[in-house]
């Protein structure tokens, strides 16, 4: 153990020296260290891109764009905003779909139903795992865990009709009462 008070005077002297030697530096939280590691090791396929709206010094907030090259959503561009909490990776990143999309697992406000974003998150997972989870939602939309019930029933009952509705939504048209964002670029 330490002797707390024999060292006190020394401590004050050294602190003064340290201030003189360039002052204190800011710290990187353990979450920031980990997200820097995740970002530097991120390998994106050509169907995806990443952007940092606040520049390279803020890695906690970024946008991932997914452009599926197969399946119902082929040709569309879907942006997801990521907000990484300070307790990352103890807590998962917060992810929202920035466009109104007709999808069984994404509601009209952009909430995403992906198990690893909530109940199945583990600290060993990474930004990369989440991104590939998101891309899986477009290659294999899952009607069994609906967040948009109409879209889920549509997909389960009449896949061809669902495909038509997806195209219409992606062109910026109406499905039912809702107008969707055009995402064909």
């Amino acid at each position, binding site marked *: 153990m330490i002797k707390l008070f024999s060292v006190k005077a020394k401590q004050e002297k050294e602190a003064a020296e340290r201030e003189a030697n360039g002052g204190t530096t800011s710290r990187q939280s353990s979450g920031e260290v980990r997200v820097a590691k995740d970002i530097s090791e991120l390998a994106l396929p050509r169907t995806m891109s990443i952007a940092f709206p606040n520049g*390279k010094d803020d890695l906690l907030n970024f946008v991932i764009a997914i452009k599926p090259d197969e399946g119902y959503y082929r040709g569309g561009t879907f942006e997801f905003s990521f907000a990484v909490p300070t307790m990352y990776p103890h807590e998962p990143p917060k992810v929202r779909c920035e466009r109104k999309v007709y999808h069984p697992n994404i509601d009209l406000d952009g909430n995403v139903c992906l198990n690893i974003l*909530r109940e199945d998150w583990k600290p060993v997972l990474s930004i990369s795992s989440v991104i590939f989870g998101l891309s899986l939602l477009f290659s294999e939309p899952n009607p069994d865990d609906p967040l948009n019930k109409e879209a889920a029933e549509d997909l389960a009952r009449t896949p061809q009709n669902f495909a038509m509705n997806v195209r219409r939504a992606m062109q910026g048209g109406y499905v039912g009462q809702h107008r969707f964002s055009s995402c064909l670029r």
Partner: protein
Amino acid sequence: MSRLDVDFCVDERARWRSIDALLLRRGRFTGPDFEPGEDVARVLREHVRVLVVGAGGLGCELLKGLALSGFTTLDVIDMDTIDVTNLNRQFLFRAEDVGKSKAETAARRVRERVRGCAVNAHHGRIEEKEDGWYKQFDIIALGLDSLEARAYINAVCCGFLDYDEDGNVDPATIKPLVDGGTEGFKGHARVIVPGMTPCFNCTMWLFPPQTTFPLCTLAETPRNAAHCIEYAKLIQWPAERYGETFDADVVEHMTWVYTKALKRAETFGIPGVTYAHTQGVTKNIIPAIPSTNAIIAAACVIETLKMATMCAKGMNNYMMYVGTDGVYSHTVEYERDPSCVVCSPGIAHALNANATLEEFMASIVAAYPDSLAEPSVSFGGKNLYLRGVLESEFAENLNKPMIELMNGRKEGLVVVNDKKMKKTSMRLRLSLK
């Protein structure tokens, strides 16, 4: 003051007789560096400054215990105000205090009650204080209910550490922490001596992740009241009150969520949505048992006293207490994580004073070929070089001298990441010579 009080207090020696019995003589359980005598008693009463972080259930108990153990200079920091639901266990507060600052009220009550004890209150967030502010205290006692706040204070204190060439911590830079936590009938007390015992981040795995419900369950098949409340807060609030941040301390916000949750529960025929339950779910309130707080805070106070005086060996280093089924307690010696990104010493690495970032990276790859091939580097709060998707943005740093990137400092802790290291980061204590 009644006659009895006067008699009782008039003799300062008599007042601290029980504590002095520990401080003025050696015993078989005293610590190895313990030097009994008046000096240690004077240090305790005149020099030691303890900061109590949090003035809630644990905080009230900590302040009371520290003041009655002979600590005479205490500081307390808390951002909260007193709520009527606190009064059942936060015994320094009265009904007329509702709405007032917890820190200020707790400090005043202890000052009034314990003669000669100075308690300074700081009403505000722990993040608002500069790191250096925390240096003035000798020991920091934590009575918190959140992981974030613990991780924050832990990182501040670990940031003070200096290591020598051999990776041994400079004792003068150690800021010890005593941490308590309770949840119903369970609790823990632990001692963190940064640089010597595991820090909070070394043992983050001890804390289970918060239980969350699948989003689709909340949206489509809610089965209980908590599901309805979560839905109202998580889905309905951002959709219907776009741009407003939900604040659990604003009554109107809480009422709004409660009303929405209640309506949803009625639609699905689910009972049990009440205002109190809504508060519980949205604020993640854990049931607090006053006596659990008392037990845990008592352990923390005793460890603080032992650390300040060395009058007995300190706890090593984590005590768990379980009161759910009988009374069970166990103390475990957790180990440091040698690659902890918050407290590990890092590896000493020297470089000539004019070396550029590019030269620095080449030198560490040469020194650690098994761990590094394409390193990413950060210093302080800033990334200096990141591989991958952002690499081009950092290219301009490659030819800059390290000393410039380190804000003119000749020594510092540099964090290095590399694909070759699967789970860990490497910390280097870089000195430019």
